[in-house]
């Protein structure tokens, strides 16, 4: 991938924004965020007819090989779709899809600085007293997202789905993703897929905009533990809102290595907060189906990281690390959900 520099970004913005003068890009550096996209931060200053402006910016770039089948347009549109609908998200500023500029498509967004996003920091003893507030913020925001009527959102960029079709669609999609990765035979994952097909869930109570990766690590929080913004919308899609809840309950994403889901709160607390905020019921059978389904999705993503690592000219440590760290734990989570552990 072509390196992005302060000079190249400054030249690009000067050309892209003809009304901007004296464009200055500074403190450009890559952040240790995410396995699927490159994320950079920089300071921007420019002048236009209204005066001098200074902004903190986040840049994300599509890599040639990723563990997630998404692109800049999809995430950019997802952020735009939910912006202003009660779920706090950063404002999108610019989408550039022509790879001639930076090798891969990029998006620019406002950078909300001075907050935290680490899923590990909140496992430290000093944060223990703020976990209830973090839990309230995490699962309330998720519940509010579930409650937003899809008719109020511009989701035309997403694949169609219905309350009846979404479960099978997601299973088909992630099974195909597993088939496309070359990591060897996986008896537990394949048994789980057969179980899911033999035991389809009830139709979704409603169709919702599903975030697709709603968990600790993908939201900003302040020093008091208040949720500030929800990030990483690249896997957003129309679907069953139980899907987001199930993903957030995943054992492999329980960073405290105990019964606190997402490393934040016990399963029952998470469900209670989500139900109150969404106005929906988390049907136990449906939620169980989605929890096992999320194990399939997780394994597909970790396996896709292996494939991306193997075929990339610039293998990313995180793809190999995540696969080593997560794949057996994901199998173990499937055993638990199937009552075989």
């Amino acid at each position, binding site marked *: 991938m072509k390196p992005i520099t302060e000079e190249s970004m400054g030249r690009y913005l000067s050309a892209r924004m003809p009304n901007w003068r004296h464009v200055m890009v500074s403190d450009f550096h890559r*952040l*240790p965020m995410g396995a699927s996209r490159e994320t950079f931060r920089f300071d921007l200053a420019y002048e236009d007819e209204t005066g001098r402006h200074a902004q903190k910016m986040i840049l994300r770039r599509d890599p040639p090989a990723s563990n997630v089948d998404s692109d800049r347009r999809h995430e950019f549109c997802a952020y735009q779709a939910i912006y202003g609908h009660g779920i706090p998200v950063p404002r999108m500023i610019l989408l550039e899809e022509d790879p001639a500029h930076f090798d891969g498509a990029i998006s620019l967004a406002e950078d909300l600085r001075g907050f935290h996003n680490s899923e590990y920091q909140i496992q430290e003893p000093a944060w223990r007293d703020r976990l209830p507030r973090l839990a309230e913020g995490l699962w309330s925001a998720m519940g509010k997202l579930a409650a937003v009527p899809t008719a109020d959102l511009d989701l035309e960029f997403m694949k169609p789905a219905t309350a009846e079709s979404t479960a099978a669609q997601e299973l088909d999609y992630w099974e195909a993703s597993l088939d496309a990765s070359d990591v060897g035979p996986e008896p537990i994952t394949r048994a789980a897929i*057969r179980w899911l097909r033999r035991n389809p869930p009830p139709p979704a109570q409603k169709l919702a905009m599903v975030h697709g990766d709603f968990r600790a690590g993908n939201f900003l929080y302040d020093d008091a533990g208040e949720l500030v913004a929800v990030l990483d919308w690249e896997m957003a899609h129309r679907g069953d809102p139980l899907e987001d809840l199930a993903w957030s309950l995943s*054992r492999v994403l329980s960073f405290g290595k105990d019964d606190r889901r997402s490393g934040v709160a016990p399963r029952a607390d998470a469900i209670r907060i989500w139900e109150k905020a969404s106005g929906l019921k988390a049907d136990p059978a449906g939620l169980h189906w989605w929890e096992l389904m999320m194990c399939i999705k997780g394994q597909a993503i970790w396996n896709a990281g292996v494939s991306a690592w193997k075929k990339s000219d610039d293998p990313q440590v995180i793809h190999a690390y995540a696969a080593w*760290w997560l794949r057996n*734990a994901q199998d173990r989570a499937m055993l638990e959900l199937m009552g075989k552990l």
Partner: protein
Amino acid sequence: MKPSVPAAVANLAALLRDDIAPALTGFRAGNAGMAAAMFDMVAEEWDRAAARLVAENAALRAVLTRGGIEHAPGPDADLRVSALEAANEALRERLITLHAAVEQRDDADARSLENAIWDVLRASVENRRIASANF
């Protein structure tokens, strides 16, 4: 190799995590931290990998034989980890076929065999656990 590979790799992990990573920032610090965690996993896996695979392959052969599925005979002759992993993958592929077939049957023998398959899979997962895993 002396010092032993697990001890040397664990030392490298500590060096990366406690000395080098704190001197870095941003993306590089993240990579150093993950590399340290990978060294920890190598240290854990190095000593046990061959024994784990030999035992798992024997268990897989036993359950496949019980299910009437043909497979390469054991015990494993080539004890290099790469050879053991190749044998393991061939056996796991056949286990998927057997498992799917057994699920379709509705008799006591099938349920008993299915339980035996789950026993093998459960043992495999427990023996592959790493200390840093969330679950």
